C-alpha cells in the first residue's frame, strides 16, 4: 500500500515538475518572442502607416489651355520615398469648357488603376487594361469600372493652374 502511494506521489511529483518545467520554458519563450517581436514588427510596419499626403502641384499658366479641349497635363515633382528623393511622374486630364470652366480628372482608372487615355474621335476615355470607358464628364459608361474618374481639386493662383495631388 505504502509503496503504491509512494509511487503515485513520485509520479505526481514528476508530473508537477514536468508541468513546472513546461510553464517555465513556455514563459521564457513568450518573453523572448515579445522582446524581439515588438521592436521587429514595429520596424517592418512603420512605413506602412504612412497613408500619403496631398500636395498642390503647379501646372503652369492656365491660359495655355485651349477652351473646349481635353488636354493631357504631365507632372513631375520630387517626393521623398523612404530614404530617397525621387521624381514622381504622371499626368492628369484637364477639360476646359468653352466658357473657360475647368475640370481636372485623375488618369487612374477606377477599376484596376491603369492610366486612361482620351480618344478625341469618340470623345471617351478608354482604359487599355480591361477596356473600361468613361465619357467626357468622367462618368463610367462601359466595361468593368463602376465609379466615375476622380475629379481632382484645383485652383488658379497668380494665373497658374494648381492641382491637389495625393503623393
Amino acid at each position, binding site marked *: 500500500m505504502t509503496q503504491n502511494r509512494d509511487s503515485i506521489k513520485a509520479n505526481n511529483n514528476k508530473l508537477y515538475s514536468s508541468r513546472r518545467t513546461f510553464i517555465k520554458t513556455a514563459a521564457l519563450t513568450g518573453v523572448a518572442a515579445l522582446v524581439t517581436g515588438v521592436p521587429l514588427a514595429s520596424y517592418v510596419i512603420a*512605413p506602412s*502607416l*504612412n497613408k500619403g499626403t496631398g500636395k498642390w502641384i503647379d501646372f503652369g499658366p492656365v491660359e495655355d489651355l485651349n477652351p473646349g479641349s481635353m488636354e*493631357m497635363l504631365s507632372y513631375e515633382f520630387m517626393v521623398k*520615398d523612404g530614404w530617397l528623393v525621387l521624381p514622381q*511622374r*504622371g499626368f492628369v486630364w484637364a477639360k476646359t469648357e468653352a466658357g473657360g470652366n475647368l475640370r481636372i480628372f485623375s488618369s487612374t482608372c477606377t477599376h484596376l488603376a491603369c*492610366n486612361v487615355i482620351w480618344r478625341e474621335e469618340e470623345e471617351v476615355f478608354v482604359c487599355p*487594361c480591361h477596356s473600361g470607358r468613361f465619357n467626357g464628364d468622367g462618368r463610367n459608361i462601359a466595361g468593368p469600372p463602376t465609379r466615375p474618374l476622380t475629379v481632382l481639386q484645383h485652383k488658379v493662383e497668380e494665373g497658374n493652374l494648381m492641382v491637389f495631388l495625393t503623393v
Partner: protein
Amino acid sequence: MMETQNRSKTLLEWLALDTLVAWVRDLEVSSHGLSWSRFCGSLSLVLVVLLFISGAFMAFYYSPAPGAAYDSVDYAQFNIPFGDVVRGVHYYAWNLLLVVVGLHLLRAFFVGGYKPPREMVWISGVLVMLILPAFIITGDLLPWDQKGYWSTQVRNSIMSSVPVLGDFLVRMLQGGPRTGIVALTRFYVLHTIILPGLLLLFIAVHVHFLWYRGISGPLAGEEGDQQKKVPFVPNIVNRWLFLFLVVTVVLGLVSWYWPAPLGDPADPTDATYVPNPEWWVLSLNQLVAIFKGPLTVIATAIIPGGLVALIMALPFIDRSPERHPARRKKTILIGAVIGSILLALALMGYIEHHLTPLE
C-alpha cells in the same frame, strides 16, 4: 574500440559523418518512385534547385533601386558572359515549375494520392503550391520594367479590393502608399530571403510526410512490404542528376535563342502601356473582369479562397479508401467541371488580351 585505436580514422569519421553516410548508402525506397508517370515531383525539385542557383547568381549584379534596378538587370543580361542564360533559365524555370507543379497536383488528384494515410502529404503539397504566386508577384517588379511596374499596379488594386484589410495589406507589402524604393526593397527581400526560406520549410514538411506515409504506389498493386525496393543511391540520385542535366541544358539553350523578356524601363507616366495578364493568372483576371464594382470581392477573395479551401479539404471530403479514378466518378467529375471552368475563363482571357488587338 580496439579497432579505432589501431587504425587511423577515415576522413568521414573525422567529420563525424560516417553513420550518416552509411545510413544514406543503405537507404532504399519504393521502386515505384522511379516510374516515369510520377517524375513531376522530381522535376519540381530539380527546377527549384535551378531557381535557387540562378537566382542567387543574378543577385550578384542586382541593385534594388528604381531606375538602377532596370540598368543592373539589363547590364547583367546583355553584358555579362552567360547573363542571358542565367536570367533566361530563371525565367523559363519558374514558368515550367508552375506547369509541372500543376501536373503533379493533377496526378495526385487522379490516382487518389490524398487518400489515407496521405492526407497531410496532399495538404503540405498545396501549401508549397500556394507560395509560388507570391514569388512571381514579388519577382515581377524586380527588373523595374514596364510590365513589372504596371502589373504591380493592377495586383495592388486587386489586393486592395479585399474588404477591411486590403488597403493595409498593400501598404504593408509596399511599405507605404507608393511603388518606389521602399516597395522595391521589400519585394527584393521577400523574393530572395523570406519566401525562399518559407519554400524550403514547406518542401521539408512535404517530404517529411512523404517519408513517414510513403509514396502512394501503383493503383492495382499492393502497398507496403511486398513492394520492390530500389537503393536511393545511386538509382534515385542518378535520376535526379540526369533530370538536372537535361533541364539545365534545354532551358539554357532555350534562353540563349529566346532571351527572357525585358521591356522598357518602368514609366509611370506612360498611358499607352497595356500590361497583359500572364498565362497562369488569366482565369483569375477574367473573374475580376466579370465581377465588377461591389462584387469584385467575389472574384478577388471569395472564389479563389473557396477554391483553395476546397482543394485543401479534399482528403476530408472524398473519404472513401477507393483510389482508382473509375471508382471515384463523382470526385473526378466535380474536379473536371471546376478545371474546365478555369480553363474556359483562361481561354476567354487569352482571346481578349492576347489575340484581340486594341481597337
